[in-house]
């Protein structure tokens, strides 16, 4: 994938709420916030669980295997940053081991014929700069 990223669309990897996620991606790990009080995952990261209001939140690793819940192929770039990307595929991914979370990502290394609801995908990590690794997903062939 040879896509150009400009600074203003990159994640704030130092944000204290988000740092555990981005730290994980540097180790090739995908982790999500889990509330130990109501025992539910949530997304995005918050100071309090959006379901029960508790602050007892820990980060749990996913195996990074998921399915496409839904998707789109974007043809019109809504920011200058995406002008050399279009058309590109955005999907909402669900994970068996992280119920309740949908992760927004791109589907890569695949033609659009591989992109459909229910398609199984697995995480790959793209290094954007020294510290930023973006998890992307590629379809699992034959599944």
């Amino acid at each position, binding site marked *: 994938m040879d896509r150009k990223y400009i600074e203003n669309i990159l994640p704030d990897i130092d944000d204290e709420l988000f740092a555990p996620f981005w730290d994980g991606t540097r180790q090739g790990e995908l982790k999500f916030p889990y509330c130990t009080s109501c025992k539910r995952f949530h997304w*995005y990261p918050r100071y309090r669980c959006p379901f029960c209001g508790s602050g007892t939140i820990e980060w749990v690793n996913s195996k990074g295997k998921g399915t496409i819940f839904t998707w789109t192929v974007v043809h019109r770039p*809504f920011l200058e940053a995406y002008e050399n990307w279009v058309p590109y595929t955005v999907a909402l991914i669900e994970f068996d081991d992280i119920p309740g979370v949908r992760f927004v990502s791109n589907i890569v290394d695949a033609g659009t014929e591989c992109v459909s609801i229910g398609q199984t995908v697995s995480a790959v990590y793209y290094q954007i700069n020294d510290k930023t690794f973006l998890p992307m997903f590629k379809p699992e062939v034959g599944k």
Partner: protein
Amino acid sequence: MIKPLQNHNKKLKDKTAIVGIGETGYVRRSNRSVRELVLEAVDKALDDSGIDKHEIDAIITENAVMPSSYPHNEMASDLGIASQFVCGTTGGMAGVLASVLAGAAAIDSGAANVVLSYFGTTWGSSTGGPYAYHDIYPAKRSFELPYGFYGQPVYFAPKAHRAMYEYGISEHQLASVAINQRKNAIMNGKAQVMKPLTLEDYLSSPLIAEPLRALDCCVVSDGASAFIMTSRERAMDCRKPPVYVMGAAYSSSDMPEDSVFTQLPDYLGNIAASRSTYKALAMADITLDEIDFAEVYDSFTITLLSELASLGFVDKADIGAFVEEGNTLINGRLPVNTHGGMLSHGHALGINHLVEAVRQLRSEAGEAQVKNAEIGMIAGALLGHTTIILRKS
């Protein structure tokens, strides 16, 4: 799942009325500022009501856009009035409509006598349009921007794919939403876009974010609308017949604002819409079958379909067919967006939907008049949802 309700607000039923409406007309490029547009709409609403501007003692608008582009106290100065109550409600169409609820509560409590509300925009002619509105959320900047998940069409396109998958909605059914609302717009004669729309036009319009095409998306507009509310008693001697606020309710969503487009457990449903509609009907003490027409949030064709299901008018399995069969046309079973909605009339966060409902309930809608229109619903979302029920006097 509808949470049990403590308070149906029955006390507010029919206590207040909308007595003045004003609108600039909506265009793509006006070469005018937001303030000029809003002032024109406010002047027209005052004239329509017959109320002297010095009687306005409260200004209530949605809280996301207007407070920065036309602050409440600037409006008071420009009108030469002294307001004693100001309030910003929540964002999006839910916020524009929640001004009616806040206005009714302010008037009923005695905090205000005459409420002015307005919304105006130059999204049509400004760069960036409405998209930048979501830049305020750090999580969206960090977890969505790097993937190009940005711009309202990109939020709603995956919903359309999922709805096609779960409910069997077809491309032609999505098209029928745009086509039928255009028919309403043409009959009404006040819309930004009034060119007849065919299925061929729809299918040849460019893909924006699959499956949504340009003609699935609402217009972007320059324009403004305003309305004036007062008590039932004061409404008696206004210029036009009062339109009573029969029901008004707001509900927040079950998800934080940054997550509401992606993480709702019921991804296609809108729990806030079901809840606010249930509460508004309870306040009005009526059932859905008593609604004669509805003006409904329609940022995209798919948005209208999921709203109609969440409001309870149609079972979700039947929403595509319901619109395709013509039920939402002006002479249909449930006329919807009788001015053409955001898809054709104009995009002003639905204040134009409210103004159109008032016109219908005063029998001022001309060719687009819904026969025997006595009760109308106006419903709109963004992050929460508001449902308003108005009735003619």
